[in-house]
């Protein structure tokens, strides 16, 4: 009954209904407006072409998967062993002066052994490798990475059913296990072999107006593999390389040579999540910030209206249970904001992504569960923001200070952290403790230490995991409503 009464109050105030509708409209309109203005094109030689979509892995994520692979088929169980000589390579125009091409390897250049479900980019794999300066690692699934406990130049990878185990050894006799990973759905015949790749060298330059600019430079790594077992029967695949070669790649082509049982393999590229070759899908929901302001005003007014018009006495006379009155109001605001959020996200995501794709803009693919988390999480964020605004409004009982407080706590931190000269660590701290931590729910690409790109707040990486961030907002909302209810019990008007 009390819920129905509060719902009746909400829907009979025209400006609140309009404000809620405006919030949904703002998300959709800004998402679509921004989508129509973006275009993307790539160069293939001297021709301008549509950018190719990056490959996707078995869970549907966009991945980077480019390396030189010298391989042979393995049916059933088996293993591959080799001694990997020191990495060598080329870095083009590194700092400080960016004026020469030098010999060297970037920290995450990789050379090692791999088991892969075919040679198609994005196919499942597991690999052991030596890296430029991060020791021996075992990696799989594009994001999983484990450092070996001990160093060594001998590597071994063995397959037993769908279990792949990596080993390292300093001398080829005493083997140390790194770990065993499971590759579900691995067929009986897989490709095993030697691989080399080398990600771009990066220079990060602080921008005086906040944030930073990243410039990437082409690099190549070369490694010598000896004592390779099994012997014979090797073929070469250039996995994921584009058909067009820059002048650089023409003079430093990827590939391999063999002389007296020693394989020299050269490669450039990376194996990991793709973050540069397209737009992150959450970018179409940028209108959320503006929409939140409308929702905040509606939420705050729901909290302050009965005090301003002194109808709270009548309400409490009819329903002398302040806790239930306050909870019912919070529930109505929350439910309305949730519906607004679901409509806004449900329209914006499909329409804006379609508009972007029509403009040949590549949108980075995410897995089904991640997409669902972004969509539902954004709607929940809007619902919790409405409840939080209601709580602060009912607590302060004055609209203007309440709107300012909620906006300063929820909307200002991400804007300051991303678009200003605030130092990254201060920005990260803000996005951990303020209700703005909740925006982490929209982050589509996770942060991993083994990727060389900067992954700060300014790059769209939040300090808290998605649901933890949303929980921070939920706690703030709960605290605000609880304190407001306590105040209502203490002094009803």
């Amino acid at each position: 009954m009390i819920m129905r009464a509060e719902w009746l109050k909400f829907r009979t105030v025209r400006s609140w209904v309009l404000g809620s509708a405006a919030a949904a409209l703002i998300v959709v309109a800004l998402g679509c407006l921004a989508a129509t203005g973006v275009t993307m094109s790539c160069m293939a030689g001297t021709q301008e072409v549509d950018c190719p979509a990056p490959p996707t892995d078995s869970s549907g994520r966009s991945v980077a998967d480019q390396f030189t692979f010298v391989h042979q088929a393995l049916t059933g169980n088996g293993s591959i062993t080799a001694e990997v000589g020191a990495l060598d390579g080329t870095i083009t125009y590194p700092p400080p002066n960016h004026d020469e091409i030098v010999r060297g390897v970037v920290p995450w250049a990789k050379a090692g052994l791999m088991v892969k479900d075919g040679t198609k980019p994005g196919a499942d794999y597991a690999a052991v490798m030596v890296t430029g300066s991060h020791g021996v690692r075992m990696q799989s699934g594009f994001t999983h990475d484990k450092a070996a406990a001990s160093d060594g130049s001998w590597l071994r990878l063995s397959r037993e059913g769908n279990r792949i185990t990596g080993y390292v050894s300093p001398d080829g006799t005493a083997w140390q296990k790194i770990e065993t990973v499971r590759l579900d759905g691995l067929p009986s015949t897989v490709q095993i072999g030697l691989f080399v790749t080398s990600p771009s060298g990066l220079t990060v330059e602080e921008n005086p107006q906040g944030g930073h600019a990243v410039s990437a430079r082409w690099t190549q790594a070369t490694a010598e593999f000896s004592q390779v077992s099994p012997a014979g029967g090797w073929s070469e695949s250039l996995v994921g390389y584009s058909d067009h070669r820059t002048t650089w790649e023409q003079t430093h082509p990827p590939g391999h040579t063999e002389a007296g049982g020693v394989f020299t393999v050269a490669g450039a590229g990376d194996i990991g999540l793709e973050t540069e070759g397209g737009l992150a899908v959450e970018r179409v929901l940028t209108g959320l910030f503006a929409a939140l302001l409308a929702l905040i005003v509606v939420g705050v007014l729901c909290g302050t209206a009965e005090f301003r018009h002194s109808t709270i006495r009548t309400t409490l006379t009819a329903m002398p249970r302040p806790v239930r009155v306050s909870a019912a109001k919070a529930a109505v605001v929350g439910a309305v904001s949730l519906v607004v959020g679901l409509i806004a996200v449900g329209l914006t995501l499909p329409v804006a992504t379609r508009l972007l794709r029509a403009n040949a803009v590549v949108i980075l693919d995410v897995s089904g569960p991640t997409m669902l988390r972004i969509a539902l999480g954004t709607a929940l964020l809007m619902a919790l923001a409405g409840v939080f605004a209601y709580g602060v409004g009912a607590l302060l009982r004055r609209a203007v200070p309440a709107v300012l407080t909620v906006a300063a706590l929820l909307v200002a931190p991400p804007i300051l952290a991303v678009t200003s000269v605030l130092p990254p660590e201060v920005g990260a701290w803000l996005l951990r403790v303020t209700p703005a931590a909740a925006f982490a729910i929209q982050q589509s690409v996770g942060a991993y230490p083994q990727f060389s790109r900067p992954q700060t707040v300014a790059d769209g990486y939040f300090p808290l995991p998605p649901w933890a961030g949303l929980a921070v907002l939920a706690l703030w909302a709960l605290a605000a409503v609880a304190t407001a209810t306590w105040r209502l019990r203490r002094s009803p008007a």
Partner: protein
Amino acid sequence: MVPLALALLLIAGGVALGRDAVDPVQLRLLGVRLGQAAVAAAGVQMLAAEYSSGLIRATLLAVPRRLDLLAAKAGLLTAFVAPIAVLGVGVAVLGLTPSGDLVRAAVVSVLHLILIGLFGLGAAAVVRNSAAALGIVLSLLFLMPMLLRMLPDPDWQRILYRTTPATAVQAMTTTVDTAILPLGPWSALGVVAAWAGGALVLGAFLLYRRDA
């Protein structure tokens, strides 16, 4: 009074940000970007509070010359905001090496805060509702920059950057690499002054012509 205390806190809070940045002046004066919202709220409340409580009728009865009333409120607001802005900005830049750029950024910031208060007062005189007036001012200060970044047409973008207070504080407090900004500090102050003046003139006109 609550908004002004909040403004002081936000503006002076910049002092805690250290100096570890390419442009320490801009870093320290980040608080001005937040504090201007509270100053605008103070300006709005100065007049809108009287409308929402109905007190405005009594006030206008006591002071029948409405333009004098608005001028008095503007004067009083400036008298409140100015010391708070001077104190807040002064604290925020404590310990920085004095330079011409620093002094200019600080002086322009103080003047900007005073103008934003007057802008809030003018907006309240125009729309006579605290929520709507504050909404207009805050949208111009905080939503505009976001919307402008999404605008597809670069020509319109440039025109709007140069004629709205969207990035005014950034233009006023930047001391490094100023060439890439659409406006210089003094012209940004001029833009804000034009908006504040326009709102006050329109508000005065409406106050004079309209029933309360």
